């Protein structure tokens, strides 16, 4: 090594210089100083490193598997601040895969992107959206594939998207934004929904420490709306609706409807039966909001609507709603156009 250094910096040879040992002594002294000062700074640096990791000012080191997965990019990403830049440009490239419907390439790119910029909720959200919504639907609608393969790929991409979100939660346990993706995924009625799990996830979200208060209430209400869609959980849905109703800030139309439906369910143990006017304050408002709920439920067919039809019929009579505007007209409507 020393010969190598001497070759490069042209140190005088032993024959020419009687002080030949001096460079050696200098090198040994320098090395000793570095070792001693290195030992002295070790604990301070370790504590500072832990402090900076806790403050999330520096990223965690990659493990061997991650380095292998990232290939050459891990080397480039070692330079501070280059990771988010590479991730951003890969995201642009992934959007081209979306246009070309090259889902395998897109999936691979997003796996790398989230390794490069793991604390960015945007990439977890976009990656899971591509897998759960786009890749699954595209595979299901690909007429070149046999029916069995299409169905298999559809499920496979939805599961991959769910696993992708799980990885995001594992890497960012404090991020409610990433945790909310899982609840949204299960509550998505077009992609193999599981409203029971969605309700659980929303309730977990509402208990996370760093969630803004208005979002906490929102997550509780979303848990209620998901529970209301689970046939066996009508009692839990009613109990939650009753509990949330006690806070005046929660009294939004959907929650009032859920409470009305819950207390109208024949199998529910009702804690306190509120009157229609207690809940909705006026009959007009009750009619307006229940009507919206009923029309929506006909469209989606995803929820039992105990007591709603009867209430609407009654209100239409009391409020003298004109026959053409009624949800349940009592007279046959006159045809507006008579063909010749």
């Amino acid at each position, binding site marked *: 090594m020393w010969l190598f*250094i001497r070759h*490069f*910096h*042209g140190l005088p040879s032993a024959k020419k210089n009687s002080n030949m040992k001096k*460079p050696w002594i*200098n090198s040994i*002294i*320098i*090395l000793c*100083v*570095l*070792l001693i*000062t*290195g*030992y002295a*700074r*070790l604990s*301070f*640096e*370790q504590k*500072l*490193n832990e*402090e*900076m990791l806790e*403050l*999330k*000012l*520096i*990223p965690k*080191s990659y493990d061997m598997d991650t380095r292998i997965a990232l290939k050459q990019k891990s080397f480039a990403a*070692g*330079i*501070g*601040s*280059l*990771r*988010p*830049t590479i991730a*951003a*440009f890969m*995201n*642009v490239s992934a*959007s081209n895969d979306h246009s070309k419907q090259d889902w395998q390439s897109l999936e691979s790119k997003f796996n790398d992107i989230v390794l490069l910029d793991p*604390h*960015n*909720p*945007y990439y977890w*959200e*976009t990656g899971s*959206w591509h897998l759960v919504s786009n890749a699954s639907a595209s595979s299901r609608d690909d007429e070149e594939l046999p029916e069995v393969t299409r169905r298999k790929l559809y499920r496979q991409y939805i599961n991959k998207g769910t696993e992708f979100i799980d990885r995001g939660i594992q890497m960012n346990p404090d991020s409610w*934004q990433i945790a909310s993706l899982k609840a949204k995924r299960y509550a998505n009625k077009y992609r193999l929904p599981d409203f029971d799990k969605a309700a659980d996830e929303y309730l977990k979200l509402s208990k996370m420490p760093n969630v*803004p208060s*208005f*979002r906490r209430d929102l997550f509780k209400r979303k848990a209620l709306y998901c529970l209301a869609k689970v046939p066996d959980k009508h009692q839990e849905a009613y109990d939650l609706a009753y509990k949330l109703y006690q806070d005046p800030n929660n009294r939004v139309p959907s929650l009032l409807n859920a409470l009305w439906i819950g207390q109208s369910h024949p199998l529910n143990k009702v804690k306190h039966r509120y009157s229609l006017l207690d809940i909705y304050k006026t009959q007009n408002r009750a009619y307006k909001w229940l009507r919206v709920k009923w029309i929506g439920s006909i469209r989606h067919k995803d929820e039992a609507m105990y007591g709603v039809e009867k209430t609407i019929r009654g209100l239409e009579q009391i409020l003298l709603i004109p026959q053409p505007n009624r949800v349940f007209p009592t007279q046959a409507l006159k045809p507006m156009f008579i063909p010749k």
Partner: protein
Amino acid sequence: MIIPRKTSFISLPRISVIAGHTFTQLVRMKVFYFLIIFAVLIWALKQFVLGTFTGGDTASEQQLRLLKSTSYFAMNLFSIVMAISATALLIPKDIEDRTLYTILCKPVPRLDYLIGKLLGVLLLIFVSLIFMDLLLSVMLHYNTQSLIASEISLMGAGGNSEVLQERITTLNAHGLTNNIHYATLVIFFKAAVIASVALLISTFSTSTIFTLILTIIILLIGMIQADARELILKASERGETSIISKLSMFIVLVFPDFQLISVDDGVIDGKIVPKLTLLKITIVSFFYVALYTSLSWFTFRKKEF
């Protein structure tokens, strides 16, 4: 009887003259052209890339994140390249131009010469980083305000005021704060440490290429130094003493930890840099600079040319 004038060990006027001369020398090498490239990079980013982030709840702050990450990458690149190449060139160029002989034959202590040269390089990097930080701050402020304005116009009419407030707080956290300048300052500290390492190597090497290669190797080792430290701690917890753990120990003790002198990743994520942490990073950086400069002087003090 002639009484020789006593030369003080360190003289600030002497150091400032050498630093000023080094700065002028480097400015004449047209290094400031990089600033034009930086400005063009920021402009191109705004024109062609920032608009590609669409959809999702957090799309708008991505623009600010990308602006910060690209700017910090350019700052890192410029300061590292300048710190290594300019410092590696200093002594060989002075020998080649024979300027070194005219300086050292005067009553100029070699420590003054080394500190002056180092400060000249650091001054150049500092001025450049100030310019880049200024440009980043202007762009960041302008973009944050325009994003807030678009959020208000989107959600303002009949929207949830709490959601709007949350969005504004998030955008402001990613926008122009003191943390932006702290990150630039830490980039400067990192450049200072790299420059002092290059100075140390250049004192025992007369080949610029050797200095460049060795400094880059030390820089790369310094970037994974935290991994080596973790390996040692894990090995010591298990009571292991393998060759790898001994080698890791050597790396940890001898090489600087460049990962510690970096907060830009956190600032890009919108994290806050506490002043106490910044102070600790400053102490670590000054310690490294002082150590390597002292060792440079130790090697250089009796070097014959």
